[in-house]
């Protein structure tokens, strides 16, 4: 267990420290959202209708950004070899990486999501739910994305490949996350969507590390 905390601290430090940390993902998030009014027109009525959904779409795209470096860095400099030999099981290492990805990337994006959504014209009443759904959804996005990152180790074209592998798997969290907000906005019961979103995130966090560890072992073999 001690080893796990060391790993988690290390991953957090790496994620914050290098290349501006979550700032890059945040900037990408805002930049994507900026293009939306330019693409669909700035009329407030039209923007307000698509604001929560677009915020979720931009969120899913932004969470792809830092995935490429999640395993690649350790794979290239040989750290992953040592981690595979070390006392901490590779599954726990993968879990720590996913968790750090969520805390350093998903959480800041979740904080930015309501701001972006409101800027696009979403109702202020939606703010708490947008934050909560983005935060919970980020868990699923981080761990599902981690599988794609681990699988593309040793391939020639990391970034695009990860996006192709992972984006279809992002369908359920996007549906549930945007669905909860839409249900709330429409005066419907939003609890089931949020519950399903949490279930997806927890299942991804529970099962994802096994797939990630298997993929890492395969890349190292």
């Amino acid at each position, binding site marked *: 267990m001690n080893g796990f905390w060391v790993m988690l601290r290390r991953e957090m430090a790496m994620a914050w420290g290098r290349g501006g940390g979550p700032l890059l993902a945040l900037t990408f998030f805002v930049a994507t959202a900026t293009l939306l009014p330019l693409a669909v027109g700035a009329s407030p009525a039209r923007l307000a209708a698509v604001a929560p959904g677009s915020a979720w779409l931009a969120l899913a795209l932004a969470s792809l950004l830092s995935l490429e470096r999640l395993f690649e860095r350790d794979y290239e400099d040989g750290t992953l070899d040592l981690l595979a030999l070390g006392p901490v099981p590779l599954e726990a290492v993968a879990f720590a990486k996913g968790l750090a990805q969520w805390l350093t990337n998903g959480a800041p994006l979740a904080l930015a999501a309501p701001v972006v959504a409101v800027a696009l014209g979403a109702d202020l009443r939606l703010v708490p739910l947008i934050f909560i759904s983005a935060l919970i959804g980020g868990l699923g996005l981080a761990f599902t994305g981690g599988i794609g990152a681990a699988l593309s180790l040793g391939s020639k074209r990391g970034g695009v490949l990860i996006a192709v592998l992972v984006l279809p798997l992002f369908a*359920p969290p996007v549906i549930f996350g945007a669905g909860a907000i839409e249900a709330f906005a429409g005066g419907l019961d939003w609890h089931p969507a949020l519950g399903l979103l949490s279930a997806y995130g927890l299942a991804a966090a529970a099962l994802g590390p096994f797939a990630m560890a298997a993929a890492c072992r395969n890349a190292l073999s």
Partner: protein
Amino acid sequence: MFQALANPQRFMDFSRWAAPILGIIAVILVAMGLWLTFTVPEDYQQGDTVRIMFIHVPAAYMAMFCYACLGGASFMGLVFRHSLADAAGRACAPLGAGFTFLALVTGSLWGRPMWGTWWVWDARMTSVLVLLLLYIGYMALQAAIDDEVKAARAASILALVGLINLPIIKFSVDWWNTLHQPASVFRAGGPTMPPDYLWPLALMAIGYMALFGSLWMVRVRSEVWRKRANGLALQAAG
């Protein structure tokens, strides 16, 4: 049967006959199915366009069946580390993607006269589209890693992840769809299917299945040959 065929040589001996025989069966069944397709009376509601169904529905069914085969081959490949299972997975994916693509295209062609639009974001169509993306992801991953064994194993892990995710995606898309547009109008297809329509549908479905089996074996055979050729080339070089 799996155990006996797991031996590459025995598989080659078996598939040498089985592949062409299945291919002939497929040609006969699909020919009969197509003949019936063009001769059955037209639907009282849909007219001639109902004939698209006999191409479309079996393809959609095969799209899912192929993914199940892909998942099975991937599981075998990961658990037993058998090269033939890896080859089977590799050979299966483009076939499955082909059937999925056929289902989407024919569905779109059918949708134009029936619903008045090429594409609707209906639950089924959306989840079949996601299925196509999963196939493409599998092939892209397979192609992006140079080491063949590693590529096969990574792709197998992805196939299993996709297999677990498929029911979730299906459920979520259904759920999303009911949230957006309850009581789909597209279901006004008519009463249960008359035997006139059931026959060509069944023939086409079995014919597609035989076609898939035949092509699958041919592709696995060529994988085995390719590996042997690589081995010989290495021997000659070294």
